[in-house]
Structure formats: structure tokens, C-alpha cells
């Protein structure tokens, strides 16, 4: 019935509360991309020669590539010469200093975002690396982590302080030639986080990076590298927001995870980049390459993502299961509202024997949102007894939105077992009316149903963040029914 569908659609109108900008003096490279800009970035960061060469090689390769056309997303062509590739708050472009020297305006910004960096009111039990536009402004709890031998710092700092580790692992999971955006990132990446957890250490607290895009017409290209040495364990969370701007902004990150024997990395994302306004104007293009390699036996990598922001999301966090008995997991909630588009999923590549992977994807489409799950499960010849279980569910709110599923399965070993389940459901008028008849408002009803639907994924998140994610989803769905 059209009258009632309209009421459901009204529920999907959202207020983005992180849309403010910070007025701060910055230093930036001129817009445009060429070898000089790359040299400038590298010089600003006082990088060793090998890294500059690495960047230039990636750049030269990138110039031969074309942006992928296969994702089910639509947007005008991006002019890469129009983007600024390096912006840093003044006095920060040399890289992070102690938190005491950080501009109070920056600290205030993070405070407003709910991420206090200062000693006295830091998040309990969570170490944070805060990245503002192109650089890291500070990392908390460094000393406490250092006592355990855990390295947690900005990428730039890692290049200076731990060059051997960086050189050994950088690009080893996502090579610069991997794809268009990965090549671009490899050429111009500015900062990001670096984590190394030594043998046998269980990281004593959650690690997290908070990414903030502030400047206009800039791209954010961060690089994250996490290495869990034998028998170690770490849980990592990233969060992201950006101001509301009418222009689209590009975010093309690369994340590489490596687990050695018996190690485990749990990587959680709560992505809340500015999604654009209700008419689809503005918002972040989130074109990200995330991949983990279970190098060692019995190792485990688990991705959990809650994607509520961005105008367009293009990401497939995957796991290469090399070590025998290794485990890959992907738990995802992706919400598209208004005119947002998402093409997201995972890749599970089974090399080792007895490797196992689990995929749970929960897509939610509201308004005019378009949501695609795209996943690859590949079992190679040597992967005897490999197992995969995939479950891809779509939930529709209203009847202007769309959900699509593209599962790709390639199995080269006959002892492998791959299971795929999919479902599509719709929040029906009769369900909303039933809730209303029980005194519950339509908005609360939608939130209740959506939360129930996402439960399996939320329970993978660290407790505090599960609550955050729930709230975020509720905000993102505000206005989706009347």
C-alpha cells in the first residue's frame, strides 16, 4: 500500500552528527598527482630511499591501470589531478610529537568525536592512534604497550623506528600492483597505523585508530600494517568520520594483516564516513583494500565491519589461508540509506589443509540505497578438507532500495566443503503495525528488527563498540519510517 510504504521511507532520514569542520592552519602539497608530489610526500616524511622507489614504482604502475568497472556502483569519473594528496596541520607535517605539543584544537576535535586523547580522560583499556587528514596526531598508551614489547605507532614513525619490519612486510599481502586503488595508495599513502605484537604476547588492551578527514578536496590514503608474531593475539578497531561537504571526497586505504603460527588478529571496523545528504549530494568514496594473510599454522584472522557511512563503499576484506588449520572469518553489517551505494564482501582463499572460513554478511537497504554482497571463496588444489560456510542476508526497508548478491565459488579440491545460504527479507508494514499496536513507535520497531537482524555480527565486536554500533545504526536509520 503506497501510503504505508511512504511512512516507512520517512524513517530513513538521518542527521550526521560528526559533520563539523576544524579551523586549523594547514600545510599542503599542490593539488594533482605526479612524481614530484610523491617525492615531496616522501621528503616530508624523511623516508629512506627504498620507500621512495617503492612509491614511484607503484605510481608508474598505477598510470597503466583503469579504475575497476565491475562494481555495481555509479558515480561520475574522478579527476585525480583535482585532489590534494598531502594535507597536514601546521607543525605536524614532520610527524607526531608528544601529545603535549599537539594543537589544542585538534585535541578538542577528537574530544568532540568522543575520542579523548588526553591522559586524564582517555578511553579505558583502549589505546588510540588518531589520524587527522594525512598525518597521525598522536598515539595513546604507548608506554604501557611498550612494556609488553607491543609496538603501536603511526606508520610514519614505524618507518623511522622499525624500518626492517616495515620493509619486510609492507606490500607482502596487498602488493602495489594488486588493483587500481591499492596502487594509488602505495604511491601516495601518507600515514596510518603500525602494530607489531611479539611472540607469545597477548596484547593487554584494544588497539584502535580513529581516522578523520577534515580538509576540503583532499584524499585520505592511509596504510595500516599489523603483524602478529607466533602465538600472539591482538584486537584492533578502526573508526572514521568526516565533515559534511557537498563535494565527494576520496578515501583509498590499504590494510595488511599478517599472522604467524598460532597467532590471532581480530580487526573490527565501524565506518561512519559522511554518507552525503538525503539527496545523495556529497559524501566519501570509500575504496579500500583490506587483506590478511594467515601465514602460520593454526592462525586466525577475523574481520568484523559495520559500514554505515560513505556515499560509496567498495571493499572486500579477505583472508589468504596459507597455514594449515588456519581460520578466516568475515562478519559484516552494511547499511545503505538515502542514495548510498555499497559493493562489499570478502575473499577467502584456501591454500592450506584443513583451513576454515566463515562469512556472515548482513546487508540493509533503505531509502534509495543499493547494497551488493560480492564474495569469493576459492579452494586451491592443496587445501584438503577445507571448509567454508557463507550466509548472506539482505534486509529491505521500503520499496525504493535494492539488494544484490554475487557469490563466486571456485573449488579445486574434492575433499573441500563449501556451503552458501542466502535470504532476502523486508520489514513489512504488518510487522510495523504489530509493534505499534504494542505501544512501540515505528522508529523503535525498525531499530529493534534491524538490531535483531545484525545480532550475529554485533556480538563479534568488543563490548563497548557493539553498543556504539547499535546506536550508530539507529541514528543512520532515523527517519526511515514515520
Amino acid at each position, binding site marked *: 500500500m503506497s501510503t504505508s510504504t511512504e511512512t516507512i521511507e520517512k524513517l530513513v532520514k538521518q542527521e550526521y552528527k560528526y559533520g563539523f569542520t576544524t579551523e586549523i592552519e594547514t600545510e599542503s602539497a599542490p593539488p594533482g598527482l605526479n612524481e614530484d608530489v610523491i617525492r615531496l610526500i616522501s621528503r616530508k616524511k624523511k623516508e629512506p630511499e627504498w620507500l621512495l622507489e617503492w612509491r614511484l614504482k607503484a605510481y608508474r604502475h598505477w598510470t597503466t591501470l583503469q579504475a575497476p568497472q565491475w562494481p555495481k556502483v555509479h558515480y561520475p569519473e574522478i579527476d585525480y589531478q583535482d585532489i590534494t594528496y598531502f594535507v597536514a596541520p601546521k607543525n605536524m607535517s614532520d610527524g607526531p610529537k608528544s601529545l603535549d605539543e599537539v594543537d589544542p584544537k585538534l585535541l578538542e576535535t577528537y574530544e568532540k568525536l568522543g575520542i579523548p586523547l588526553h591522559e586524564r580522560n582517555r578511553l579505558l583499556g583502549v589505546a588510540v592512534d588518531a589520524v587527522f587528514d594525512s598525518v597521525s596526531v598522536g598515539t595513546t598508551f604507548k608506554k604501557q604497550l611498550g612494556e609488553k614489547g607491543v609496538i603501536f605507532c603511526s606508520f610514519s614513525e614505524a618507518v623511522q623506528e622499525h624500518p626492517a619490519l616495515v620493509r619486510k612486510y609492507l606490500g607482502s599481502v596487498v602488493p602495489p600492483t594488486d588493483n587500481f586503488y591499492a596502487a594509488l595508495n602505495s604511491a601516495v599513502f601518507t600515514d596510518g597505523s603500525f602494530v607489531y605484537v611479539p611472540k607469545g604476547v597477548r596484547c593487554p588492551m584494544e588497539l584502535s585508530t580513529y581516522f578523520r578527514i577534515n580538509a576540503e578536496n583532499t584524499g585520505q590514503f592511509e596504510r595500516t600494517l599489523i603483524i602478529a608474531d607466533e602465538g600472539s593475539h591482538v584486537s584492533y578497531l578502526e573508526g572514521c568520520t568526516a565533515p559534511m561537504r557537498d563535494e565527494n571526497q576520496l578515501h583509498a586505504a590499504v590494510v595488511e594483516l599478517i599472522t604467524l603460527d598460532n597467532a590471532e588478529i581480530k580487526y573490527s571496523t565501524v565506518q561512519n564516513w559522511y554518507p552525503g545528504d538525503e539527496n545523495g549530494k556529497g559524501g566519501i568514496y570509500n575504496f579500500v583494500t583490506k587483506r590478511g594473510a594467515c601465514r602460520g599454522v593454526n592462525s586466525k584472522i577475523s574481520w568484523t565491519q559495520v559500514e554505515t557511512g560513505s556515499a560509496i563503499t567498495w571493499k572486500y576484506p579477505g583472508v589468504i589461508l596459507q597455514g594449515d588449520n588456519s581460520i578466516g572469518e568475515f562478519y559484516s553489517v552494511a547499511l545503505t540509506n538515502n542514495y548510498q551505494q555499497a559493493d562489499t564482501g570478502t575473499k577467502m582463499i584456501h591454500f592450506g589443509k584443513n583451513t576454515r572460513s566463515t562469512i556472515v554478511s548482513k546487508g540493509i537497504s533503505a531509502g534509495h540505497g543499493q547494497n551488493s554482497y560480492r564474495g569469493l571463496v576459492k579452494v586451491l588444489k592443496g587445501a584438503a578438507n577445507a571448509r567454508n560456510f557463507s550466509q548472506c542476508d539482505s534486509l529491505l526497508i521500503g520499496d525504493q532500495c535494492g539488494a544484490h548478491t554475487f557469490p563466486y565459488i571456485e573449488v579445486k579440491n574434492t575433499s573441500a566443503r563449501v556451503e552458501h545460504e542466502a535470504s532476502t527479507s523486508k520489514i513489512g508494514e504488518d510487522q510495523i503495525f504489530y*509493534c505499534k*499496536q*504494542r505501544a512501540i513507535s515505528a522508529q523503535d520497531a525498525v531499530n529493534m528488527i534491524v538490531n535483531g537482524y545484525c545480532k550475529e555480527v554485533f556480538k563479534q565486536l568488543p563490548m563497548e563498540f557493539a553498543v556504539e554500533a547499535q546506536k550508530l545504526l539507529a541514528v543512520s536509520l532515523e527517519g526511515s519510517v514515520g
Partner: protein
Amino acid sequence: MTQPILAIQNLSAGVEGRQILKGINLVIRPGEVHAVMGPNGSGKSTLASILAGRDGYNITGGEVIYCGKDLLELDPEERAREGLFLAFQYPVEIPGVNSTYFLKAAYNEIRRHRGQPELDAMEFLTFVKERMKILNVPEDFLKRPVNHGFSGGEKKRNEIFQMAVLEPKLAILDETDSGLDIDALKIVALGVNKLKRPDNAQLVITHYQRLLNFIVPDFVHVLYDGRIVRSGGKELALELEEKGYELIVHRAAVPA
């Protein structure tokens, strides 16, 4: 006389291009139990839906006063918070939403509306367990998602269980008896009787006199083609059972 809980005056309504209710008059006072009977398609569920505030009907005439308020002006959730409860003919499944959580949300909405403090999870559980006894519902009703995978009869029983928790001022039971086995029917009917109070009222829609042996109505109304064509005491149900609608309606049509 006390203020009626519900006063329907000359209510006409329909869907696009079709009149379903053609001038309904009905007054329900505190402490009363009314039964509405009528053949398939006569408009019983439509009446219940309109009272509960479902979208999609055109109200073409008349008015409905509920506890002194213009009912048709209120949103469905406001009606519910004011104590109007509908036990659905076809209860809806809500996968993924835990029944306890759902009921607690509903219950606390009503308490908030009345200016009472909300119950926390523990307090609510204690309260709800006590209510469960009235209807003899199994524990796992609370643990499962709302109506999800429930059998037809279980769903009906769950409706009355919700009614027991929410303690409505006016409960409308739309064919709650259909789909229930004999034992369940007795349990549900006895439950409904226990929930009866001098300050609330029940409107029971049914096809079968059998239910009315357990829930004894003060008034029985026959709804036929969108009109209440006859009203009487509980003996009218027996007469209906005996003679069928055609005869009763035919007689009604002839002026006495």
C-alpha cells in the same frame, strides 16, 4: 452512568472503491464483555483494525470516542499506550526480536505514558513470570523471537499472554479461539476471565458459541454486511448456532 470505554457512532469505512462498514453503532462500558459474531467477510476484522488504527482505510463517516477521546485522531501506538489492545486474528512473526525484549519495550512504553517509572530487566522478568502462570505458557515463549516459528495455536496463546502483561483497558480479541485445541481454548478463556476487571472491557470476535461458554458475554452483536443487524444477550449466540445467519438476518430485516 459511567463514561463508556468505547462509543462507536454510525461508523462507515472502506477501502478504495469499496464500502466495508456501513454505519456501526456500539457502546461498551466498563466491566462489560461484548461478543461480535458474523459470517466471513462481514467486516469484523476491519472493525478491529480501524479501532487499532491500521493504515489504508477510508473513514467515510461517524466517530469513535474512546475514554472521552476522539480515537480516530490518535496514532496506533498512542491508542495502545492508552490501553487499547488488539489480539490479532493473524499474529505477525518478527524474526530476530526476542520476545522478552519486545514485551519489556511495550510494557515500559505504556508505563512511561502513564508517568510511571520503567522496570529494569530483572524487575520485568519477575513480573512477567508471574503473568505467565495465568496462561500457563511455556518458558521458551519468552526466549524465542516474537511469534517466530510458533504454531497457529501458540501464536494465539501468545497474544493473550501479551494481553496479560500489558493489562489493557479495552481488549479486542479477533478470533482468538480459532486454531486453539480444546484444552488451550479453556486455558485461554480462563485467562481472559481472570483479566476481567470492573474498570476494563473486552470485545470478543468469534464464529463459535463454544468460546462463549467460557467467556460469557454480556452482549452479543451480529455483524452482517457491515452493519450490526441484531444485538442481544448471550442467548443470541445460542440462537445463531441453532438457526444460522441467514434466518436470523432475514428475521432482522423484517420489521417486528
